[in-house]
């Protein structure tokens, strides 16, 4: 069973947001990393890039295919997880510990459009 963490917000495209004040840590869920297989490359934006909710902000690549990452919320990138440059497989080891980007959210009300842990778990079970 894939791990789903309470208190995070989840998108239908299997990204999560962990909120800390004005900031959101964004990554892919355990369900997603398991479906993708071994991650060999993470294509990340730069600090100061703008991300738009529902728009593509990067990609996660396995041997077989590239999967676009869709931003669950809008904002400005304040940090990218540089550890993923050399060790992209960290996402497989712990998808929640190893977030991909940290953004300063521009509109926290967008979180209302996302699922909570219970809803996401039900969504994955379909």
């Amino acid at each position: 069973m894939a791990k789903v963490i309470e208190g995070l917000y989840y998108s239908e495209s299997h990204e999560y947001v962990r909120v800390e004040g004005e900031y959101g840590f964004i990554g892919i869920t355990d369900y997603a990393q398991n479906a993708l297989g071994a991650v060999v490359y993470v294509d990340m934006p730069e600090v100061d890039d703008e991300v738009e909710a529902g728009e593509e902000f990067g990609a996660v690549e396995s041997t077989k295919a590239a999967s676009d990452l869709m931003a669950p919320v809008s904002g400005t990138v304040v940090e990218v997880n540089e550890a993923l440059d050399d060790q992209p497989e960290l996402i497989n080891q712990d998808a929640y510990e190893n977030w991909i980007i940290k953004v300063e959210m521009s509109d926290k009300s967008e979180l209302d459009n996302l699922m909570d842990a219970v809803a996401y778990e039900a969504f994955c079970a379909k």
Partner: protein
Amino acid sequence: MAIKQILEKRVKRTCLYDRHLSMGAMMVEFGGFDMPLLYQSSINQEHHAVREHVGLFDVSHMGEVTVRGRDAERYVNHIFTNDVSNMPAGKILYGMMCYENGGTVDDLLVYKLGDNDFFLVINAANIDKDWAWMQEQAAGFDIELKNESDVYGQLAIQGPESEHIVETVLDIPCSDLVFYTCKVIPTPNPSHMGGEDNYLQGLLISRTGYTGEDGFEIYASHDCIRECWDKLIDAGVQPCGLGCRDTLRFEVGLPLYGDELSENISPVMAGLTMFIKFDKPEFIGREALLKQKTEGTARKLVGIELHDKAIPRHGYTVLNMDGEPIGEVTTGYHTLSTDKSVCMALVDTAYAALGTDVQIQIRKKVFPGTVVKKQFYNKSYKKN
């Protein structure tokens, strides 16, 4: 649509389909067949199993066409770019069938089983197209042409331990087989001969493969293939799917029809002139291919190595250093055996020289790379 038409469009299954499902394989449609992409492991694991030990592939989706009769050799030499005259029985040649304009119909293996007795192995995705084309070319030849694709299953056992495994698990002596030779032997179980359809009346084994490792391919009736598969799996051989089949062949520079060869990509463009025997008096496409060889072609297939880890994939655009499009990626991966982001690409000939600086567009960014040889990893064939 009539039921018959619907049935014809249905995705086909090999004789090992049930086994793939029971092993939890992730299935994918390829060439009109429902095939295993990978088993309960990862593409990386299966890839490394083949490079370091041994792996087992169901390749029963491949097609087989037999050519027999008085004009068999003449016919094969008419449709094939390589030269089958003077082949000893038991020898195998790789080459292409081409259209008059030099475009590729398919790449294939031609097995000579005896005088005027040839066994052609063609790509699954092209079976219907090849069969129709081959029949059209048969006018005026005294031959018996048969599409035996549904009759045979096929296994590939690949890796440095494959000879040991075939000899001990399948009880088939094969140390006498050199690279690109074959033999027909009785099936281990006489009831698995396969009936009258199976003109092999036995099991055909060749020292061939599509991975760059030493290995064997086995063709036999469905029952015999199932028995061999079960024995190999019970002995602990790693089953391998199409995922690693592609990463393995790509690393050693082997083409895949549909990507590196097509009706628009000739064997000359793909750098495969070694398999075109121009001193044969005639074969379909000879004039066009000779012209391409002597005058050059507008585009050529090259290898490109990126300086970063970003992965170039099929269809991505190749640019020159001024940002102008000069070609497309045909196949690309981050290689599992050499840990580099590399691809094969069809580019304008002006940029095809080894060492040329190019760039590849990967989603929103452009990554620099260099033109390199298409073989990214050295093959380990047993050639003597």
